[in-house]
């Protein structure tokens, strides 16, 4: 008996070691470009091309100063406002939508579902002129409103929620809640939401990310420098004829850090969601 146990134990250890090594190797491949990027931030543009090696240089403080000069803190705040609002809005709207498509039978059910899939296929960037005209009529030019509200109607999010709820929320649970006299909205909040926590966190991270990196729309909608978001600010560091590449890379690096933090926090909740979900009642 103990022999057989030992064999399986060794086998498992081997497997663990080899998979871990593989993971470490792949991690290194992932991290190298970012290490290089961080390294670039420590060089001055003078030396960036000619003297770049794997070891950092000493120009980090200067680059930071250049970046900060360009209203970086302000755009950070702006990006945070836009992204946080967009995330809350989008997750809420998508979850509601997904819930109704997945669990209710009503006349337009199939039509709505096909509808969101079709909307994913149409690149709307070309309609930007009409969009700007519409925003002007609604008086929303140079405000954050269009940037936030446009994520409310995110088809990818709605699709993701729909299929996740379909797969992971048992209809019996809902039926029994109904018999117990719950009204529909309470069903949504008390039953469905706890069950789809991983999906909520995933979608929040994604929407935050997409709204943070959104580039073209803010450029066209916003007119005041004080309202610009991070991607625009970074793209304007330096000029056409003299692009301060090092400062720009530093700015990019700084711009990723909030995302990274949000991601780590979100992942922690994610893990919590895993353990909670595993002990399902």
């Amino acid at each position, binding site marked *: 008996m103990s022999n057989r146990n030992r064999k399986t134990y060794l086998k498992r250890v081997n497997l663990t070691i080899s998979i871990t090594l593989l993971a470490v190797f792949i991690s290194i491949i992932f991290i190298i470009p970012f290490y290089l990027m961080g390294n670039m931030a420590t060089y001055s543009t*003078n030396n960036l091309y000619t003297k770049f090696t794997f070891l950092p240089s000493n120009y980090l403080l200067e680059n930071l100063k250049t970046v900060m000069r*360009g209203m970086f803190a302000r755009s950070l705040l702006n990006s945070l406002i836009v992204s946080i609002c967009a995330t809350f809005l989008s997750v809420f709207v998508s979850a509601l939508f997904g819930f109704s498509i997945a669990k209710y039978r009503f006349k337009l059910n199939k039509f709505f579902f096909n509808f969101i899939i079709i909307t994913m296929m149409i690149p709307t960037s070309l309609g930007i*002129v009409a969009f700007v005209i519409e925003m002007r*009529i609604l008086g929303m030019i140079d405000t954050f409103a269009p940037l936030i509200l446009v994520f409310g109607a995110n088809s990818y999010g709605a699709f993701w929620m729909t299929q996740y709820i379909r797969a992971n929320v048992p209809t019996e649970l809902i039926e029994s809640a109904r018999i117990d006299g719950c009204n529909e909205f309470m069903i949504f909040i008390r039953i469905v939401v706890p069950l789809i926590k991983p999906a909520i966190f995933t979608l929040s991270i994604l929407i935050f990310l997409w709204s943070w990196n959104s580039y073209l729309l803010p450029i066209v909608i916003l007119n005041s*420098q004080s309202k610009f978001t991070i991607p625009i600010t970074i793209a304007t560091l330096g000029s056409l004829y003299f692009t301060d590449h090092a400062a720009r890379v530093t700015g990019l690096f700084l711009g990723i850090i909030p995302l990274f933090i949000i991601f780590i926090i979100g992942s922690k909740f994610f893990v919590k969601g895993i353990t909670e979900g595993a002990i399902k009642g």
Partner: protein
Amino acid sequence: MKKLTFLVIFIVITTVIISFAVVGCKGETVSSETITEESTTVEETTAEQSETTPTTVEKTPEEYSATITMWCWDAATPSALIPYFNQTYPNIKIDVVAIPYAELLQKFKTAIASGTELPDIMWLEMGFRGEAIALDVWENLEAAPYNFDRTTVFDYLYPFITNARDEVVGIDWSSTICGLAYNRHMAQEYFGTEDPSEMESLIPDWDTFIQKGIEIKEKSGTFMLSTDEDVLAFTIGQNQNEYVTNGTLNFNAAIAPTLQMVIKMRDSGIMDVNDMWSPGYFASYTDDKHMFFNFPTWMLQHFITQDTERTDTWRLMKAPGGGYAYGGTCWSIPQAADNKLEAYKFIEWYMLSSEGSRLNKDISGNLCTVKTMYQEPDFAEIKYPQLFGDQNLSEKWFTDIAPTTKVKGVSEYDNVILTELRAVLSQIKVDKSIDFNKACDMLKEAYSAKLPDLTIN
């Protein structure tokens, strides 16, 4: 149930109506924006010429009061000079809005098409100058109340800043005359001299250039040129044929020579294949393997930042075939802007006044386009000892090269033509199997797709 179907139908109908209304009133929005100004200035009736100093107009500088918006891609450079401007015009505030260069024209065109607010000053770079001017939404700066006198600036500039009706619609903030900068140690070694005038007589035309280049390459592997973009710069710059006349694209006259020259240089081995602005290109300044560089006035900043460890390595000469221009930015005022006169005062101070020109030169390294400034000895002496040693660059650029520089006009097709040309060049420079005819075919195919309305000759 019925109520909800009704609601849905109602929403759909409203949206349809809105969208048609939106599309339908697009035509009106542009005209509705060219309303009579609510500008706060006094009606300008003086016909006096505004000279380089601002005090000869009726209003005193303090009385000009407004906040003008300027769309640009580099906020730092003008912002450095604004405090000085405000010493003369304390009540004109300037709101500098920096948009990334690649999106600037698009934002502007969207603003026009959608009827949103336009800036008071708009930067037009050569990359899209022709197209922007063809939009025909710019103020004529020679008319009242601006009364710009075009003889103030260099003659070669006129095709760059005038529109189809020969009205001046913008003023360049720096001159972009080009010469060839060369590594003087290499010149001494291979040509026996480092003096610019002697170099110019030793290399009177491009064929001689290529020949000497082949010899040099064989001897030591040194390239004459680092990038194909330099070749494009001087072939296009020196070619006086317009791209498009009367609906015909003059391929053979205006564009084919560039292809030919690049292929010649590629096949002779004297041209390296770096992409302009890539790390490889910057490294070629200092790797002692490249001898000549296209050198417009604004190139100084790049050399200054990249070539820091040596001194006095370069000299500037006139290129074989004469002077040409490459790049440049002008500031223009849209007709639909609100504070046009104040905007012009800023432009005037910044680029045409003595004070502004000096500050530009000292703080930003931009060399103005005003002729008379270069007759003032202290302004006209432009030396950068760590790069060019004792050579007086302004003499070379503005006294020697500028008068002989002729440029062709800008057109709305420039952007497309050059973009496609660069795309083809970037392929043929690395692929030696593409010969001249194949390259022409590739390019003509691209043009027929992007410019379907033109016949290609």
